[in-house]
């Protein structure tokens, strides 16, 4: 039976690789990786904002009036405020002038 020496054959391929194929491929791959990295960074930023928003939401819950966090002035503290007449009495002549001008302007 005939034999055939495989080792005697050339290792060449019967096909061709298009010119500049590998250079073009390198640029395409690098561009695609760049896009994926950008998306990854964007996703991280979105995740960061989402986490920050969650923290802010939780903090707001603690500060909510029903959560007891808001400092609402009670009736006593409002009644302790100076009356308008008292303020007017303590104003200088210039301040009174401005006050009367503003009152006329707003129809008060």
């Amino acid at each position, binding site marked *: 039976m005939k*034999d055939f020496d*495989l080792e005697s054959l*050339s*290792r060449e*391929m019967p*096909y061709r*690789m298009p010119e500049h194929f*590998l250079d073009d491929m*390198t640029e395409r*791959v690098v561009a695609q990786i760049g896009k994926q990295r950008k998306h990854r960074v964007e996703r991280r930023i979105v995740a960061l904002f989402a986490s920050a928003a969650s923290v802010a939401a939780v903090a707001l819950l603690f500060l909510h009036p029903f959560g007891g966090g808001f400092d609402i002035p009670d009736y006593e503290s409002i009644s302790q405020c100076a009356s308008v007449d008292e303020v007017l009495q303590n104003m200088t002549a210039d301040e009174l002038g401005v006050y009367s001008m503003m009152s006329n302007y707003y129809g008060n």
Partner: protein
Amino acid sequence: MNSQGSLSVSDESIARLLCDDNHVEEAVRLIMKKYGEPLYWHIRRMVVAHDDAEDCLQETMINVYKYRSTYSNEYPLSSWLYKIATNESLKLLKNRSGFTMSVDDLGDSLKDSVREEASPDADETLILLQEAIALLPAKQKMVFNLRYYDDKSYEEIHQIVGDSVNTLKTNYHYAVQKIKDYILEHQL
């Protein structure tokens, strides 16, 4: 085909750059420069058509980027790259074969592609050799190509394909026998 150019950057340096987010693109360029050509031919010998080899090589490089954290320097970088390229080639062939056929059933259609893809001035014996390789079962084809064209040792082929060295030797032996028979049968 096995030329890795005159690039002297070591695989260790490339692997280090690959794991560094700031240098990953540089690493990919170096891999393409050093291994782009052998990987392309390894894939092309599996899938035959240039367009398919192009898709597979691109996917291979994207996977190199995506899964770079899984690379372990216990194995040579080249084995890891060949493994990814081999898996991409098999994936493409699996998609081509569909649910009803296995990759090994694609032999005849791959064999027909060999002649379509061959250069007009290609040596007839080289075309016959590629036809014979196209008809081999996928495992035998991988082992034969890695040993015959890429001069890989059985240990390296084991790192890429995963089978034991003895199984690989058996696969190679059967592949050589089938190729010889095919060429003797078809040679004018």
